[in-house]
């Protein structure tokens, strides 16, 4: 094949191909763009050939991803060239370079119109093609009638008419209000008699668009569609060149059946009979053959026939035939067919009466949940979600939970949301529901949104029988060594409310409950502290008679937080402190939370909202939506297909829920109870659960049990003015001592080196020196008194995260003037985690009591040992660790732009050694290191960072190691180092980094990803 015929273009392409790297390519492109720009400037000297060549070059550069922001005018002007070669280039490149909204297109409208109404067939084709591909509103306004004329003109050849059909389709699709299609039903019917298959195929696409908008007008086309289908599928009456691997134009068959799906029914019995004959033939006559393309084509037709059968509500026999077919498909080896089998089975769920047959395939579908292909896993999850009902909920939810621990991060959020919804909708008993949600939080805390744990709290609050059980469960989870912050929240809440039910059990005395919860305090973020404070207040309230020791402990905590920077925490600390001094009166104020009013689950509502967001014109989709939303409403909707009516999980537990005999009265009872509640609370119940839990004024509790989650001064329950005054903080204690230097900066510096100053103020300097060996660390704190008088009441306390075992030697109570004391600190790393140990340090100087909390630089990278690998050592390891959770990849945006060398230095500085020359691409970095902890021992970690020289603010990072937690933590750790935001003190729990690099725009019909978007 000869080269393009344009030497300059070929040379340019060769040059680009010979560029060693992206930088060189950019230079070459810039040079060329400069050249084109100057040539275009004195346009007069340009021959048509040269113009053409430059325009192609521009398109090529555009295709490579560079901005081409000039030369559009020259491109558009080629359209009006008199000769075919230039005109052709003008049309095609304009259609590729410009968007439908581009201003320059307006300039071309007249020329385009002249070409369309002109006599030159080839010009007509070019113009129709461009308008068909990028035509916008103005084209529709000025050209639609002309295009319509061409489509039905008898003097035009098929090659023009088929283009006119699709051009009209584009204009109509974009601006149905501008294109006048009144009276087009007859014309369309005529067009369906067309013998030329090209024109017929294009017209059928047009018909699909017209019918989807307004099927009423096009009834006359329906029998014609059936005829066309018969002609193709039954009679095979079609020119040889239009058969594809022996199948009469599969595309036209698919299109025709698509058009038929927009008509609600087929009334004429004869037409209906002929159609079903053809469909039956397709369903039964499609065999699996060796040739892939033939197979694909015939199955394309088959799957379209399946949806048509579903749409037409065929007799039960034909439906079960379809389900049987799909059942066969989901078990075949061919992944495409498996995928489509699952997808169509999910659509099939909308048809009544087949659920039971589909349920027979449950085992096979669960197998697909473990398929190596994420596309198939997604379909399987969707199908399981759709087919779940009271009879199989336990099995399915347990499968989902089991799968959660091994699933990829991209799916976890969706999985946990779906599991939570199913558990709520179909729980056979409430204790199971509580179990499921707690397991969910335990296994995938990062992916469990607040709504999920708010909901479980609602249920427990409203069901007295459930409360001791839930409290006991929460207590069990607290014994686990490392629990997620969400688990801390939910268990603290539950134990605060209900731990008094457990008081007689071993390990559940108020004191023990308090101390196990309080152990978690150093590990949690600011948002959890208020919940813990409430829990302490409630524990105190339930301890009657009061235990002085416990009381003092809790008071000390309240006291400590009275000066907290966070207003919410401060307020709670102050108020609880004041309230708890009131003794027995406390019981009235801090009584149990009242029941929540009955309402629709926020989770389900969220799922519904997402469903309706994906508004699409398609009939299938619309139908699916209606059905979905019915299925999701939490009312006492009776399950179809004859399973015994069991009322949906209601907030107020009914005593007779399990006895089938008097279900009816139970439902009645529920209605009455709900009714009463509604009267108490005249406002329409908001679905905002956050409001419920955090805003006490939103709900009116029973008298006497005034809600005091957040005691606003002046709440009704507070009797006298004197008492109100007590709530106002009397003495303000503030740290008036200002630190010298930036604490955060000092901390970050110490993360990278082993000795230096951790903190300094006018009175004291705290230095640190550390030695690290494998998973052990030995730090020495140097406490230096800068004054000429002693510092007294010196206290140092290490608040270790759960993954560190620390031991601090005794700290003297007094530091003599101008003296320095050394306090050795032993650290053992148990497992990989990014959490940071905190040094809680306080002293008194004169009348100033100073309390500071400092992060200790015993961070993840300290337990790394640099290691340089050769290619022979690196690659086998890299390959053997494949896929999540051992190997994780993420596209990171907002990276601090660094030259590659500096990035390598940064990595080296936290002991992840860059191995130069391992990656053939000079824009990439490959690094390795060894991580030490007690649980993992020495473990090799491999890192690869791919940077984009064109955009330094983003990169793709792949991290792998032999331990999933380590991989995740290390990835997050490196990310924190690379991302622009300077990590502020105590780092908030990382937002779940859903590794779905492809979805920055939240996919609208994927609840999980939608949530991720919100986060």
């Amino acid at each position, binding site marked *: *094949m000869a080269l*393009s015929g344009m030497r300059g273009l070929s040379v340019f*392409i060769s040059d680009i*191909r010979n560029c060693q790297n992206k930088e060189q390519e950019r230079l070459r492109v810039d040079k060329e763009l400069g050249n084109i720009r100057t040539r275009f400037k004195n346009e007069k000297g340009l021959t048509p*050939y040269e113009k053409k060549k430059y325009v*192609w070059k521009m398109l*090529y550069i555009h*295709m*490579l*991803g560079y901005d081409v922001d000039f030369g559009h005018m020259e491109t558009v002007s080629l359209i009006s060239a008199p000769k*075919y*070669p230039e005109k*052709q*280039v003008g049309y*095609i490149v304009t259609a*590729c370079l410009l*968007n439908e909204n581009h201003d320059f297109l307006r300039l071309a409208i007249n020329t385009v119109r002249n070409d369309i109404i002109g006599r030159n067939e*080839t010009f007509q084709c070019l113009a129709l093609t461009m308008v*068909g*591909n990028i035509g916008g509103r103005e084209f529709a306004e000025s050209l639609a009638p002309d295009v319509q004329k061409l489509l039905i003109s008898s003097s035009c050849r098929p*090659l023009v008419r*088929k283009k006119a059909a699709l*051009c009209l*389709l584009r204009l109509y*699709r974009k601006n149905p209000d501008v294109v006048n299609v009144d009276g087009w039903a007859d014309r369309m019917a005529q067009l369906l008699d067309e013998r030329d*298959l090209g024109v017929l*195929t*294009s017209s059928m*696409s047009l018909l699909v668009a017209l019918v989807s908008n307004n099927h009423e007008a096009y009834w006359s086309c329906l029998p014609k569609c059936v005829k066309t289908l018969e002609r193709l599928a039954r009679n095979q009456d079609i*020119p040889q*060149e*239009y058969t*594809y691997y022996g199948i009469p134009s*599969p*595309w036209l068959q*698919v299109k025709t059946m*698509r058009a038929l799906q927009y008509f609600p029914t087929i009334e004429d019995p004869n037409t209906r009979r002929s159609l079903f004959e053809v469909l039956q033939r397709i369903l039964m006559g499609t065999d699996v053959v060796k040739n892939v393309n033939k197979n*694909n*084509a015939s199955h*394309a037709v088959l*799957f*379209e026939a399946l949806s048509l059968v579903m749409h037409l509500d065929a007799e039960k026999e034909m439906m079960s035939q379809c389900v049987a077919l799909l059942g066969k498909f989901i078990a075949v080896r061919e*992944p*495409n067919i498996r*995928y*489509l089998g699952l997808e169509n089975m999910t659509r099939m769920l909308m048809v009544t009466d087949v659920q039971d047959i589909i349920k027979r395939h449950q085992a096979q579908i669960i197998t697909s949940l473990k398929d*190596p*292909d994420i*596309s*198939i896993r997604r379909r399987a999850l969707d199908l399981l979600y759709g087919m779940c009902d009271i009879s199989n909920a336990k099995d399915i939810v347990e499968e989902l939970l089991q799968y959660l621990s091994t699933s990829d991060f991209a799916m976890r959020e969706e999985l946990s949301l779906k599991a939570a919804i199913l558990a709520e909708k179909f729980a056979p008993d409430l204790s199971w529901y509580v179990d499921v949600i707690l397991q969910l939080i335990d296994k995938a805390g990062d992916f469990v949104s607040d709504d999920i744990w708010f909901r479980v709290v609602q249920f427990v609050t409203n069901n007295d029988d459930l409360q001791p059980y839930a409290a006991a469960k929460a207590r069990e989870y607290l014994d686990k060594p490392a629990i997620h912050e969400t688990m801390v929240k939910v268990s603290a809440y539950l134990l605060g409310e209900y731990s008094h039910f457990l008081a007689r059990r071993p390990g559940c005395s108020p004191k023990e409950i308090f101390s196990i919860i309080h152990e978690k305090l150093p590990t949690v973020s600011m948002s959890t502290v208020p919940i813990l404070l409430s829990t302490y207040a409630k524990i105190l309230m339930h301890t009657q008679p009061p235990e002085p020791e416990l009381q003092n402990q809790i008071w000390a905590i309240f006291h400590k937080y009275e000066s907290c920077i966070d207003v919410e925490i401060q307020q709670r600390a102050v108020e609880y402190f004041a309230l708890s001094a009131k003794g027995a009166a406390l019981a009235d104020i801090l009584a149990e939370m009242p029941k929540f009013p009955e309402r629709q689950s926020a989770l389900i509502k969220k799922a519904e909202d997402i469903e309706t967001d994906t508004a*699409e014109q*398609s009939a*299938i*989709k619309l139908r699916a939506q209606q059905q979905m939303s019915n299925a999701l409403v939490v009312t006492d909707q009776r399950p179809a297909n004859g399973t015994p009516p069991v009322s949906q999980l209601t907030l107020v537990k009914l005593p007779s829920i399990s006895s089938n005999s008097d279900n009816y009265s139970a439902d009645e009872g529920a209605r009455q109870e709900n009714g009463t509640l509604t009267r108490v609370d005249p406002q329409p119940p908001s679905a905002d659960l956050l409001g419920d839990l955090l805003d006490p004024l939103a709900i009116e509790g029973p008298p006497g049990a005034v809600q005091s989650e957040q005691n606003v001064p002046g709440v009704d329950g507070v009797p006298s003015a004197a008492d109100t005054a007590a709530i106002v903080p009397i003495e303000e204690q503030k740290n008036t001592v200002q630190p010298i230097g930036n604490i955060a900066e000092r901390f970050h510096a110490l993360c990278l080196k082993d000795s230096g100053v951790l903190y300094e103020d006018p009175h004291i300097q705290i230095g640190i020196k550390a030695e690290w060996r494998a998973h052990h660390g030995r730090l020495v704190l140097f406490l230096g008194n800068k004054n000429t008088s002693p510092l007294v009441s010196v206290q140092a306390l290490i608040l270790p995260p759960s993954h560190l075992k620390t031991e601090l030697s005794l700290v003297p109570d007094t530091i003599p003037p101008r003296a320095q004391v050394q306090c050795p600190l032993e650290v053992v790393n148990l497992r990989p985690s990014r959490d940071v140990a905190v040094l809680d340090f306080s002293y008194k100087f004169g009348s100033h009591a100073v309390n500071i909390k400092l992060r200790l630089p015993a961070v993840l990278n300290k337990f790394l040992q640099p290691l340089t690998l050769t290619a022979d050592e690196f690659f086998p390891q890299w390959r053997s660790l494949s896929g999540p959770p051992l190997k994780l990849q993420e*596209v990171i945006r907002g990276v601090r732009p660094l030259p590659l060398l500096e990035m390598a230095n940064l990595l080296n500085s936290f002991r992840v050694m860059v191995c130069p020359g391992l990656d053939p691409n000079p824009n990439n970095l490959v690094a390795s290191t060894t991580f030490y902890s007690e649980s993992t021992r020495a473990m090799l970690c491999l890192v690869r960072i791919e940077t984009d020289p064109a955009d330094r603010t983003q990169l793709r990072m792949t991290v792998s190691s032999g331990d999933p937690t380590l991989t995740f933590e290390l990835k997050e750790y490196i990310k924190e180092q690379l991302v622009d935001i300077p990590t502020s003190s105590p780092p908030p729990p990382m937002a779940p980094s859903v590794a779905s*690099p*492809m*979805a920055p*725009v939240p*996919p609208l019909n994927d609840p999980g990803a939608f949530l991720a978007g919100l986060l």
Partner: protein
Amino acid sequence: MIHFVLLISRQGKVRLTKWYSPYTQKERNKVIRELSGLILSRGPKLCNFVEWTGLKVVYKRYASLYFCMCIDQDDNELEVLEIIHHFVEILDRYFGSVCELDLIFNFHKAYYILDELLIAGELQESSKKTVARLIAAQDSLVEAAKEQQSSISTIISQATK
């Protein structure tokens, strides 16, 4: 409908792009970046469909080139998969056993052919023969214009001698 067509090499180099829905240059680059990451990393024995931001991408690998077409979620996937193959067969016939190099240096021809196959993101012509005939006619039109041009320029050059 097909929202866009992408041809990407195994190394992530773009060989052809055609957009039937409006995307700005920025969005185009983003789509290409995301999709090449998503598709090039998929193993060989997986299905040909990838779900992506509420849409679906049907792709197929031919030698070193990935042909990708992005469609709506409820479009017929296999039909589009065979449009890809149909396109490849036409390219193959035109170039005579097509390879990636043909498409690199003759990317404009690939655009001509695609325009005969798809308009507005819908299939226009399903006969390979017809497409081949139309492309040949276009080529000869261009040739004819070239000859005319060169004969005119010889006349001019002779006259000005």
